[in-house]
């Protein structure tokens, strides 16, 4: 089979890539290969699905007609077994070959499984939390075994999102986190503490600076976890959520250059001219760090997929780099964070913050050379997006620094000329 555009992976990067290609090229054949058996779904919503807040149908971020309307051939439930760079073709599991002119690899990430003694013997009750089919199995397992208490290893975003879903299902959760606080990558001590306290008011216990060193099974099903601290927890469900890493299996034995992820230039192009990469597996320009990094978040994948699509279809468009940002609501506390939230060398930054623990309110702004490089919003997230704009615009904030934490912070505090440009202007363009 031959196709003009081949997209591996049918998540956000792939979908945005399709849209961008179609803006430029109405006709060229597009083929998408996905190893999942669903039209499409929003991966971050799996915690909502676990919590029963959305149905499987509601998880689709593009409807069925999308592929038809855009003339996309969708091959589901098939793995790409081999990528033959020279021959410009891939081999699907089962032997079928697809020749391509342009290729987008957007295979996403895969969960990291830490070495734990005894884990290889566990056949049941052990889960990761990144794919919908896993969640389906998790729900089945919970229901079939009338699970009431769950152990979650890792209090990063995935672990906590999973925890929230579990809590919403009425389960008790024990979290074990190696770091000295939860969400260590996203938040600082203060913010983490607020969330931790909010979690502890629910059916959730957090054990920090600890990890699982050994697991025990009973008839193949997980039965106990033994912590580094010596504590033993009986559990019949363990979710491992210590992080994800780019899925590089497909490119490993190819000349495509990788570091942590697949390295791409400003046009989302790998070192192989006709092969592009986007999404969680990609190491691309980082707006704040001015070097390449893997930013495994939805908006990055969307943007990168789009830019890749344009360039694949022949419209030169540059990726200006994004920065890490997250919007997470946990146990009723909405949070938004941008960029560098907890610099390891705080003496080189200016940090503004305001806190009201009773209201779960926390706001922190991180400045470097009078420019915002990071922010945390907790409890009240309205208008947080303005900060994403300020970071992107690299606006000097010295004239309104005092207002950054004020209650009525808005565009009004910005310099009049900048504000007028924003208000009168044509809206945001890259």
């Amino acid at each position, binding site marked *: 089979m031959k196709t003009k555009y081949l997209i591996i992976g049918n998540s956000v990067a792939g979908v945005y890539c399709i849209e961008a290609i179609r803006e430029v090229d109405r006709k060229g054949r597009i083929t998408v290969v996905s190893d999942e058996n669903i039209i499409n779904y929003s991966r971050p919503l799996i915690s909502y699905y676990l919590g029963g807040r959305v149905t499987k149908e509601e998880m689709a*971020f593009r*409807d069925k007609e999308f592929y038809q309307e855009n003339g996309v051939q969708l091959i589901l439930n098939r793995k790409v077994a081999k990528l033959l760079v020279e021959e410009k073709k891939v081999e699907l599991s089962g032997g079928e070959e697809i020749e391509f002119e342009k290729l987008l690899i957007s295979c996403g990430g895969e969960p990291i499984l830490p070495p734990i003694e005894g884990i290889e013997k566990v056949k049941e009750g052990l889960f990761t939390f990144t794919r919908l089919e896993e969640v389906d199995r998790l729900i089945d397992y919970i229901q079939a075994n009338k699970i009431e208490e769950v152990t979650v290893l890792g209090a990063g975003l995935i672990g906590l999102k999973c925890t929230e879903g579990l809590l919403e299902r009425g389960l008790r959760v024990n979290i074990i986190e190696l770091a000295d606080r939860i969400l260590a990558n996203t938040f600082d001590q203060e913010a983490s503490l607020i969330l931790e306290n909010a979690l502890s008011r629910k059916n959730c216990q957090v054990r920090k600076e600890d990890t699982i060193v050994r697991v025990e099974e009973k008839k193949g099903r997980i039965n106990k976890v033994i912590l580094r601290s010596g504590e033993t927890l009986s559990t019949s469900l363990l979710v491992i959520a210590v992080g994800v890493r780019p899925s590089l299996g497909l490119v490993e034995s190819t000349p495509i250059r990788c570091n942590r992820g697949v390295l791409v230039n400003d046009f989302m192009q790998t070192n192989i001219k006709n092969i592009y990469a986007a999404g969680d597996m990609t190491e691309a320009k980082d707006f704040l760090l001015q070097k390449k990094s893997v930013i495994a978040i939805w*908006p990055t994948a969307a943007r990168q997929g789009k830019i890749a699509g344009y360039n694949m279809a022949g419209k030169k468009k540059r990726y200006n780099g994004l920065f890490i940002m997250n919007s997470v609501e946990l146990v009723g506390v*909405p949070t938004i964070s941008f960029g560098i939230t907890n610099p390891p060398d705080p003496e080189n930054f200016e940090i503004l913050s305001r806190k009201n623990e009773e209201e779960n309110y926390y706001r922190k702004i991180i400045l470097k050379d009078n420019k915002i490089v990071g922010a945390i919003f907790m409890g009240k997230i309205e208008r947080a*997006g303005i900060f994403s704009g300020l970071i992107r615009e690299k606006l000097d904030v010295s004239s309104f620094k005092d207002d950054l934490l004020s209650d009525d912070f808005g565009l009004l505090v910005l310099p009049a000329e900048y504000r007028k440009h924003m208000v009168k202007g*044509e*809206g945001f363009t890259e």
Partner: protein
Amino acid sequence: MSDKKVNKPRRIIIREEYCMGCRLCEVWCIVAHSKSKDIIKAYKGQEPRPVSGIYFEERGAVSFTLQCRHCEDAPCLEACLTGAMYRDKKTGMVLHNKDKCVGCWMCIMACPYGVIKPDFKKKKVASKCDLCIELEFPACVEHCPNEAIILVDKEGERIDKE
């Protein structure tokens, strides 16, 4: 959708030097998005009052309102996890389907204008200006007593209500 009266791109421009801070734009936005479309009922009737699509900012003598800019490269679109935020093909407007929205606030995070609001009135959803796509003329523009909010077409030419 067949009930949409607008089929051309248009844009709202704010002229803060003429904003008198009356906030009538918000009042009429609420009315325009109420079920009854009747000002008294929208405010005093039993129906839950809609959230206005307008942010009003005021400090001293400076005030202005702001509603969704319907950006060309809308960051909210790329941030939306559910496809609830979408671009209307005919008008180029950024619209929001509340039924699909799960209230993840990704759009609030992404919007550099800070013009998307969380709405807790029924289920948790994002809420923003739809440029009154179902009316011939946006309510805020029509009712601004001082023409501080005006409507322009793609070329920037002002559109006045007949």
